[in-house]
């Protein structure tokens, strides 16, 4: 992701005033730590915990450092953070996990976690969950649970996929939030007449279009079908999937032309600049806005499509969290760290510094939330069912650049293609992965 533009509140809380806080360490379950400090420990610091992090952009990296500093302050355990750019981190994950992974590492919820957990490449964190469960919803627990029924992920931060617009632009033009598909189409027609691109859209990277597929499938066919399809328990040739593409096809004329050559950042900027009326994207769109512009951004749920699944008011709200090495070098410290980041304090520290994400913990301190963050929390709170995101709800090789990303590109390039053979090709591709 591109470097963020925000100005951040300055100085971080470093661990200068370490001395006075030794007492608070008792809050954490660090009993195990004493055993780790090794022979002849004469008040020296315990060995360092290692953390593999893909939070490499400036803003998230500093926010993560603040969390780590606070942990070290509380427990006296030094943490070595090994930061790798997200794409490289993801591409190398299976080699990384089979080598000597860091004690704890950042990863994603859903199938994307299960794929590695089910192959024994991650450590069971059910124990951690027994102490953090009170802070989390059932949806977060499900996104953290692998096929064996145990948890392998500690949830940290999240963000919703929603409709986003500039309030000042809409006020000036007198637009209202559309609640249904018909209202959306009416609004889009009006925007076009007013010289605006109704829906900004950029899909150069291949994955943003997956968000549109997700929400249409969730609205038309429901959360259960959506997950069943992505997990291979339903067929892509099903007529319900066909309806998703038919609906999408009808909406495409209201989308920005040339989406396949535009990055999501460029698309978000055209909405922020007032050239496009709205955008369907995750709230990381806010990274492209200045602080002032971000305060002007408003969010709403993707419109209802008049199906029985409208009541679910489902949306994609991917959860990013932490996983445990299958063989951590510092098991006690790793557990203490996971309990810390799974709780409200650490998440509060992170989201105070990164205004495009919110905490997963339901009791995190939200008093410092910006208006953008408050809306994110509200939208997720209103949603009845949560999905992760296409590439987190299905197997990684199916979702890849030369997999479903390329296949969705085929549809966007030629929306009028014959859906029958097209959906058959998708199913054949799934089957070939076997």
């Amino acid at each position, binding site marked *: 992701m591109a470097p963020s533009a925000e100005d951040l509140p300055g100085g971080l809380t470093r661990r200068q005033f370490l001395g006075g806080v030794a007492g608070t360490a008792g809050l954490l379950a660090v009993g195990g730590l004493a055993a780790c400090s090794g022979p002849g420990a004469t008040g020296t610091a315990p060995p360092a915990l290692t953390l593999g992090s893909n939070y490499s952009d400036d803003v998230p990296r500093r926010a993560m450092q603040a969390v780590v500093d606070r942990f070290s302050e509380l427990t006296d355990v030094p943490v070595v953070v090994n930061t790798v750019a997200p794409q490289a981190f*993801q*591409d*190398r*994950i*299976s*080699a990384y996990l*089979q080598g000597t992974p860091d004690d704890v590492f950042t990863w994603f919820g859903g199938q*994307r976690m299960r*794929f590695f957990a089910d*192959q024994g*490449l991650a450590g069971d964190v059910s124990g951690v969950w027994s102490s953090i469960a009170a802070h989390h919803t059932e949806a977060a627990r499900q996104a953290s649970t692998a096929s064996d029924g145990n948890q392998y992920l500690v949830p940290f931060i999240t963000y919703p996929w929603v409709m986003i617009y500039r309030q000042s632009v809409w006020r000036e033009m007198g637009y209202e939030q559309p609640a249904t598909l018909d209202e959306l189409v009416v609004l889009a027609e009006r925007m076009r007449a007013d010289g605006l*691109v109704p829906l900004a859209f950029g*899909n*150069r*990277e*291949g994955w943003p279009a997956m968000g549109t597929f997700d929400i249409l499938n969730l609205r038309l066919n429901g959360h259960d079908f959506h997950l069943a399809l992505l997990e291979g328990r339903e067929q892509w040739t099903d007529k319900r999937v066909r309806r998703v593409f038919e609906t999408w096809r009808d909406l495409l004329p209201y989308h*920005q*032309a*040339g*989406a*396949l*050559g*535009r990055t999501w950042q*460029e698309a978000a900027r*055209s909405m922020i600049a007032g*050239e496009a009326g709205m955008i369907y994207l995750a709230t990381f769109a806010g990274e492209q806005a200045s602080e002032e512009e971000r305060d002007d951004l408003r969010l709403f749920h993707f419109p209802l499509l008049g199906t029985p699944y409208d009541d679910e008011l489902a949306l994609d709200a991917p959860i990013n969290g932490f996983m445990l090495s299958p063989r951590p070098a510092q098991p006690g410290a790793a557990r203490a760290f996971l309990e810390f980041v799974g709780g409200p304090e650490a998440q509060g520290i992170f989201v105070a510094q990164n205004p495009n994400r919110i905490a997963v913990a339901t009791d995190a301190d939200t008093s410092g939330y910006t208006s953008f963050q408050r809306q994110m929390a509200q939208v997720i709170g209103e949603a009845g069912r949560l999905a992760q995101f296409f590439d987190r709800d299905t*197997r*990684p*090789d199916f979702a*890849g*650049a*030369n*997999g479903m*990303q*390329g*296949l969705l*590109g*085929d549809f966007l*390039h030629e929306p009028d293609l014959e859906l029958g053979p097209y959906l058959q*090709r*998708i*199913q*054949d*591709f*799934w*089957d*070939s*992965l*076997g």
Partner: protein
Amino acid sequence: MPLLLVVAFIWLPTLACVALSFTRWDGIGGLADIQWVGLRNYEDLFVGQPAFGRALHNNVAWLLVLVLLATPLGILFAVLLDRRLRGSAFYQSALYMPVVLSLALVGFIWQLQYSPEQGFINNLLGTNRQDNLIDWLGNRDINIWAVLVAAGWRHVGYITLIYLAGLRSVDPTLREAAAIDGAGEWQAFRRVTWPVMRPINVVIVVVTVIEALRAFDIVYVINRGQNGLELLSVLVANSILAEAGRIGYGSAVATVLLTMSLVPILLYMRRAFRQDAA
């Protein structure tokens, strides 16, 4: 000893790759987890996702554009520069500038030029509005050619550099003699310079073929080689260096690429041996 190194670091991995192309393996677990699937991976090249066919097409297009356009243009520039035109240093620096850049960097530069609304090219042409937008990198009917312009931009300078060095080493008395004998500019080049330059010409052909087959970075930085920018090399990378590796499938693509590379290599070697024998 050096021979052993070549065997250990080049031929063994190559043979392992061919062997892996008959297996199914996600890169997780030891050798025991590898399943033999026969020709399955080669059949899968043609199933579902049409990336392989497009990649093959694009690699061939890449080769043809370099061989038929970029390389001859580079040779032409070298011949012109060799005549010590006025301002030759200026032209040379302009031609060589892109050569210093990696193809990934070339990709970044041209992405900015081709950007739909904000790019230089669409603003220059006035084709940056919704109703007449030219989607240089997204429209798969044109994006491979747009990328080839960028790749050619660098390749021309590269060829000029090599060819000019060769021309400078040709004994000028040869051409003087031809001129005295009444040969025109073109004749002197065809009958005298070209035959003398033979070794360099072979190098140029080899360089061009290698550049075409190893093309990778520029499309990888643009969109990881999808939506019309598929290349065999990227398909290999996306299959093997991914969250869930498709090692067998990727190896099958790599084997196809290997077979394609062997053709020019064998032709070149046959020629080299024949000359040795003569």
